[in-house]
């Protein structure tokens, strides 16, 4: 090795230490501990601080309150179909399971956004603790307990939200009468089951994110490890499918099992496949946008999406299948309604009307879930990148420009999904949609109105996080 030798006290040498007297009376040696992790004491210290800073608990608790309210309302609405009696009881049961299947991805997306909020700030804190020598047990326990406590607080508010909105949702008519309060009430057992499942998800998500910290304390700080959480979604999807079968068994619809398995395989597998292809599609189209970008907003927004097409897809991907079903089903049922208006039995007309309401409602609920997920994720991203936004502000970038970038980052992938889905719907069911345009233009208008409303809702989701951006920019 070629080493340069430096002489102390020479120009190229090294002057040496210079004590300054910056230290007062130093205490004796430290008190002796048990030598073990001290998990309980550290846990008490951090839990005591959990609700002292609104910046820490505000967003995750709000997010889980929204998740809880929407999940319980969706579950309550679906459960109301299980109480319908008569010849068509089994048919309504299938419809409810089908609707739940369609909503499982947007719901998981929303719950995932809320769960990721729990990990915000946490990773750096736990990395710091790891650097200080915290053991695996301490880090794991702290992460899981904090997540579950915050999620539980939010879900408690979610139950209140469910009870408050139950009467409103109960006004929606199915099977010739409004669902009503009784129909919307899940029952204590199912209520606890839904809340428990969401709590489990919060804990599982918390554990999954921890793997990166446990590999090396600097893993998160230096971003050496790519986040790998996709398997969680697959597992949840499989759990959802199994849960649907268990539900059917519980309600004694064994003779319909063949139909249901066909539905699950026929729609469930393509849905899963779409969720693996989706990020690739978003990346492909956005790369074209990036190459052609002529303004700073378009360029930065495209780069934001390309940084993680998976994340962009996670936010809006759940809309793909529900929009497809909403468009095809809405048009189809509208057509059926128009064609069978004369001479049809009243109960058939009610059923066709219910199907039309059901598919449009499912599509709108998916948009509402996505809009909430977008709002939560955007607020979290603004807080995570607070320093960057303040820096851009100092460089002269205006708040409307930053807002335009954020809007494009979300709406760009949304348009990709919607255009792809609408083209797929028209190509695969051209006769149905073509006939609906001719014989039932009102149903097509209704589907279009629902889509426009959905897009506006998602845009509202982005706008909802604007006060967070303003707050960040207002700070020094």
């Amino acid at each position, binding site marked *: *090795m*070629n*080493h*340069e*030798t*430096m*002489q*102390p006290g020479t120009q190229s*040498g*090294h*002057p*040496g*230490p*210079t*004590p*300054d*007297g*910056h*230290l*007062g*009376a*130093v*205490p004796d*040696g*430290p*008190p*002796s*501990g*048990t*030598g*073990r*992790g*001290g998990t309980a*004491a*550290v846990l*008490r*210290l*951090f839990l005591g*601080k959990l609700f*002292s*800073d609104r910046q*820490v608990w505000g967003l995750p608790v709000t997010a889980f309150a929204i998740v809880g309210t929407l999940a319980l309302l969706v579950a309550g609405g679906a459960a109301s179909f299980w109480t319908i009696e008569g010849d068509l009881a089994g048919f309504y049961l299938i419809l409810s399971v089908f609707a739940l299947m369609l909503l499982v991805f947007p719901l998981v997306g929303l719950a995932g956004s809320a769960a990721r909020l729990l990990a915000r700030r946490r990773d750096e*804190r736990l990395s*710091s*603790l*790891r*650097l*200080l*020598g*915290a*053991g*695996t047990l*301490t880090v794991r326990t702290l992460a899981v307990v904090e997540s579950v406590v915050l999620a539980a607080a939010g879900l408690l508010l979610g139950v209140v939200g469910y009870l408050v909105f139950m009467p409103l949702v109960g006004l929606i008519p199915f099977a010739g009468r409004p669902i009503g309060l009784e129909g919307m009430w899940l029952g204590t057992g199912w209520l606890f089951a839904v809340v428990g499942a969401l709590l489990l998800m919060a804990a599982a998500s918390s554990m999954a994110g921890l793997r990166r910290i*446990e590999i*090396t*304390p*600097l893993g998160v700080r230096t971003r*050496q490890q790519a986040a790998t959480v996709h398997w969680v979604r697959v597992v949840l999807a499989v759990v959802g499918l199994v849960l649907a079968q268990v539900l059917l068994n519980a309600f004694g619809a064994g003779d319909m099992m063949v139909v249901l398995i066909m539905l699950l395989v026929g729609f469930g597998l393509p849905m899963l496949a779409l969720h693996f292809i989706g990020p690739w599609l978003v990346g492909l189209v956005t790369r074209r946008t990036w190459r052609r970008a002529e303004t700073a907003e378009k360029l930065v927004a495209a780069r934001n999406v390309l940084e993680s097409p998976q994340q962009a897809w996670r936010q809006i991907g759940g809309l793909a299948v529900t929009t497809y079903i909403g468009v095809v089903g809405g048009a189809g049922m509208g057509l059926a309604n128009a064609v069978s208006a004369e001479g049809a039995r009243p109960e058939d007309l009610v059923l066709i009307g219910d199907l039309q309401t059901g598919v449009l409602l499912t599509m709108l609920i998916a948009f509402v879930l996505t809009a909430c997920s977008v709002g939560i994720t955007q607020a979290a991203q603004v807080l995570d990148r607070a320093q960057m936004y303040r820096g851009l502000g100092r460089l002269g970038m205006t708040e409307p420009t930053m807002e335009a970038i954020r809007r494009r980052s979300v709406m760009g992938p949304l348009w990709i999904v919607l255009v792809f889905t609408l083209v797929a719907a028209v190509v695969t069911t051209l006769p149905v949609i073509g006939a609906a345009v001719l014989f039932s233009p009102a149903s097509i208008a209704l589907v279009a109105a629902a889509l426009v409303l959905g897009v506006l809702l998602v845009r509202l989701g982005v706008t909802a996080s604007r006060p967070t951006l303003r707050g960040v920019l207002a700070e020094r």
Partner: protein
Amino acid sequence: MNRPAPLLTARGLRKSYGTTHALDGVDLTVEAGESVAIMGPSGSGKTTLMHILSGILTPDAGSVHFTGAGTGSTNGGTEVSSLNEEARAKLRRERLGFVFQDGLLLPELTAVENVALPLMLSGVPRPAAESHAAQWLAALGLEGMQTRRLGELSGGQAQRVAIARAQVADPHVVFADEPTGALDSATSASVLGALLDSTVGRGRTLVMVTHDQATADRCSRLVRVADGRIVADSAAATTGGVR
């Protein structure tokens, strides 16, 4: 000559990130009571070297031997690079201290809670841990600021809290990564004085990564790193070769 026993001995350290060789065969010995400044351009491997010496990272090849009382080995030393993550965490908790550029203080905790944390992680009851932490804060000129949070402290005060936290468990060696990098020159000089006094001033050892020549000049030894190798070592002048 009767030289002090080496506290840290690194031999043949190699570390790569993908195709980038962060360390390419580094040998280094640090003796008890030294203050060692590690300098080098960005990407030279100096921070990686410090992280491997302190057991934060493990090398791809080579070894780090730590000699310190109570390290748990019968021959008075520990092979840091061969320890599992739990054992390295215990070593960091009980024998090593850290001061980073951004302090790595936890914002939701008060100053005294931050300083008490390493003791609590070692199982010291909170009242005893906080009492000892408060004494360290006072020693570093932060008396009366125990209950302040990170946002209520200046940059220099926050770094003094970080120094107190690094010292609270009375470690054998303190590792500092650009500890004054974010401070103005006057505050920087004062914080550096506190760091030196609390470590080498008390016979402990300091290993510090820095970009700043003035900061490095106040240490007893300067090691220069470039392209993952040690290219200069001021200690070589007194020993006749690189240690």
